């Protein structure tokens, strides 16, 4: 087992232990978090949608489940889980779109469960959780009618998006909708930064569900991320000094 693998095992084990510890010890505490303007804007947009009886649209991206991009899709699903309970009070049920069949199926499960918890019925329409395409651009193009035909006023893009997200955001703009977007892909993030009022950057994509709906485990994972962040910074700093000194 080489040094890289050892480091990897140690990092994974450390992260797992820290998450468990913080989830148990701090389970009753609500940690203080920095303000993320995009998430505040999302809350306001959700309020307006619920009050205005318009629809909320969540797009989960195209990240395949069994791939490194799957994390973004899973983060989107986690957010959907938080959103679905909020949106239940709206006149119109929220609609989701995705470019990956597995995400579509999982989002249907989440919406079905949410309906059962809040409305006592598992009935959801396939139209409510749609697979709009099987390739990047067909997915984005297929989302355009979802936005323009469903009285959508709030668009949330959370997942793995490339520059094709520009089509979705353009459609939202043409329908006077509010868009809050996040992607794990930097090209997608750059496009979202330019096209939306407030966009989530980088790892903020993974923090949305905790900001919207606090749970001990999600809170612990954010805290652990902060700890690891400084660990990585320390490694870079010390490693750079050692490298300059010729030690390593």
């Amino acid at each position, binding site marked *: 087992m080489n040094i890289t693998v050892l480091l990897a095992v140690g990092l994974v084990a450390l992260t797992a232990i820290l998450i468990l510890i913080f989830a148990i010890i701090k389970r009753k505490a609500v940690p203080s978090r920095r303000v993320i303007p995009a998430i505040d804007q999302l809350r*306001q947009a959700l309020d307006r949608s619920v009050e205005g009886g318009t629809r909320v649209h969540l797009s989960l991206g195209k990240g395949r489940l*069994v*791939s490194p991009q799957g994390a973004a899709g899973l983060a989107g699903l986690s957010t959907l889980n938080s959103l679905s309970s909020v949106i239940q009070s709206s006149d119109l049920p929220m609609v989701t779109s995705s470019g990956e069949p597995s995400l579509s199926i999982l989002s249907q499960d989440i919406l079905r469960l949410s309906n059962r918890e809040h409305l006592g019925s598992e009935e959801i329409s396939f139209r409510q959780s749609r697979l709009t395409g099987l390739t990047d*651009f067909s997915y984005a193009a297929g989302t355009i009618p979802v936005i323009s035909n469903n009285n959508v006023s709030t668009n949330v893009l959370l997942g793995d998006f490339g*520059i094709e997200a520009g089509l979705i955001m353009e459609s939202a*703009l043409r329908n006077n909708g509010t868009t809050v977007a996040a992607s794990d892909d*930097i090209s997608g993030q750059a496009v979202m930064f330019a096209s939306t*009022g407030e966009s989530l950057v980088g790892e903020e994509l993974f923090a949305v569900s905790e900001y919207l709906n606090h749970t001990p485990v999600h809170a612990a994972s954010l805290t652990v991320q902060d700890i690891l962040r400084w660990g990585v910074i320390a490694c870079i700093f010390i490693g750079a000094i050692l490298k300059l000194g010729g030690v390593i």
Partner: protein
Amino acid sequence: MMADIRCQMCGKLSSDELEICPFCQARLTPLHMPSPSDDMEGSDPVESSEVNISERIEGNQEADSNEMDSLLDDYIEIPSDPAELEVKEWLAGLDQESNNEMETPDLIPGGSADTFGDGSDDDWLSRLNSQENTGAEQVDQDAEKQDGYAEKDLVEWLQDFKNDDESERQQNSQPVSDLPMNDTGSNDDWLDRLQPIEGSVSRDIDDGVDITDEGDLGDVEALPESLQDSTEGSSLEEDIETPDWLRNIQAETLDLSEGTALDEAQSPDWMADLQAETFPSGNDVDSDERDMPAWLREIGADSLEFGESNGSGTPEISFEDTAIDQGAGDFDDEMALKEGLVPPGEKNQDIEASVLEANDYDLNSQVESLESFRHGSSLEKLSSDESVAPGTTMPSGSLQDFTQAGTSSDTPGSLDLDDGIMDDISGELETVDLPEWLKELKDPEVLSSDELMDAEVAKKLDAIPEGELPEWIQDMQPVESMLPQDEIVDEKLNEFVENTGPLAGLAGVLPLAANTETRHSTKPYQETPVLSGEQNQQVELFKQILNSESNPKKPPLPVKRSSQRLLRWIVTIIMLAAVLVPILINYPVALPASNYPPEMIQVRKIIFGLPNDSPVLMIFDYGPAYSAELEAAASSIVGDLINKNTRLVYLSTSPTGLVLADHLMNGVRSQGTSLIDPRVTELGYLPGDIQGMASFANNPSYTLPVSTDGVHVWEDTQVLQDVGSLSGFAALILLTENSETARNWIEQVEGHLGNTPLLMVASAQAEPMIRPYFESGQVDGMVTGLAGGKAYEQAMGISGLSAGYWSSFRSGLFVIELIIIFGGFWSLFGSLRDRKLTRKEEV
């Protein structure tokens, strides 16, 4: 039941066996035989009206209290007619009456003490909403046209009252017909008598506020509402000093309200209750007058009653007139000042305003309605202040019963409740119930409150021996010391000599007339100390809550779709022109690329150094959307590879990669950049993303054993027989637009390449993420985008696909730069202008 008797002088309880109060030596039992109605405690309205007098006196000012107390005492001490016999019993039953209050249901939501805690403003609002619903139901009942009031038709509060007094009515073994409210039947009687009066009232109101007889039920129904409202409203006047003996009465009675101190925090609460009571009108009022809020009709009715009385020209009435005007003015200014709800001068329009605005249930209009109601109630208060004679107050007993029925034990201060009742009495007197005993004193026809008052006062005063000044009056001398400090006793008062009643021949006493003169100077004293700073804050907070509720959250400014479309069209036309013009005018395409990037130079070196017939692996991992850019970047590289007669083997981890590779090869052929036919082998599609990459990197011949033609390429001497692994290739070229795909490939093949160079043809959008791998040496060379392709062609001295795009690309790029510059400035100035406008609006 009658264990104790409350002394009307000191208010303390004494045994019913005593005749003289041990505390103040006042006579407790009147000199007469008990009447059959002795058992009727708590059920007689006049009884509570006595309490009303004392309590109202306490609630107003000491001077009044002393004076009225004297009248009251005489009236008790020297009974002269059957009505007075009953008066004593009512007095005796005061405790019982109060105890009944304990059992009455809470018809004044929000009156509980705990709602004042923490200034829980949200609670008012929630109660407001709950009241809204109940209010709506009441108005629905209003809408029902009814003949008389059968028990089933009694409105909610009346039903509650009825239930509460059920036990007492049970005790009425022998109903006394001359007592109102002694059973349900009598209850109906007075209500029936109310009908015609209401009709006249309605007609009177028609001049001011248009109400038809259909609203009668609403009138009757609204009575307790107004009572409750007045009750709460009068609770604002509790900062007044009260003499000890009155304090005792107050203390005794206040126990009923579970010690709810009359703190200033009550203000929002009663406002909430008032607000809630007005909701029926807010909900259901439409152009149909019958839906007009009941309390509103009362105001109209009472005001007009006073107006009518003015016409009769009796001195009190003329006085009342002025008092009303002044009081009303005071109240409106005061309200406008305190609550800022309605500017001064608009008070007379409030009623109409509330009715008109009630249609769309605007909470602000509800508040205006509330103010207008208070305006009305103030008129009644003033008038009742003038009519302090017992006769005036007696009829209010029935109202008192209603009120007690409609007052919860936790209503802040039942004394206020009675104040409130008194406020309404003078207004209701002519229109509402005249007890039988009172009718016996008069002609059959209905009398005005003032006539009633005169008759009663005259009767009581005549019964008092002349020249005798009761000792309790002496105890209370000097009168000036009991007057409010700000009250000036003018000389006329001292010169005044009483010529009737028990004070006949005495000067300087406080006759009714004198009292009425001082009334003016005491008005502000009565009305002014209403809201404290905290209460004002709470009123303001309440207003803010109402406004925040009625004003929806501002959504972001909607995008002007027309301007958006126009801008889009303009930009589209400009861009199409910028791209098309160079083609039309045959713009020279041989313009040099910006520079030769080092990563491109590395690619050129490596391609140039490849031996002939060497195997080169190409991985096509881009989507159709990027085919133009990547084909432009890669076509000349592929052309060079073909010219070197390399064995091109390609695969793809993208489902469309292979067909795009085909498209590229065909493009290269059509471009004619290659001199010979390419030796191309298609390994096929590599599924599984990173797993597939890893698998192929570990063991390519196992992962993709055969080509798409079904040839076992790894065993074919013409293709890959000499290549067992990735390190066996002369070069590995990855064409991708996705930095993640690039990263995955780099990571997976890194350990298997050996000396095989890894080159990359990438989209310009992925360059910043891929470049670090070139910087770190993980990637040996890179061509990025059209510019990179053009630079490569230029370096190789060929004119390929990118050269064909170059002139249009350059032109389009230049226009984009200009649009970004000018558009950016335009937006910047626009946003600055918006900021200025926003600031101006804020200012």
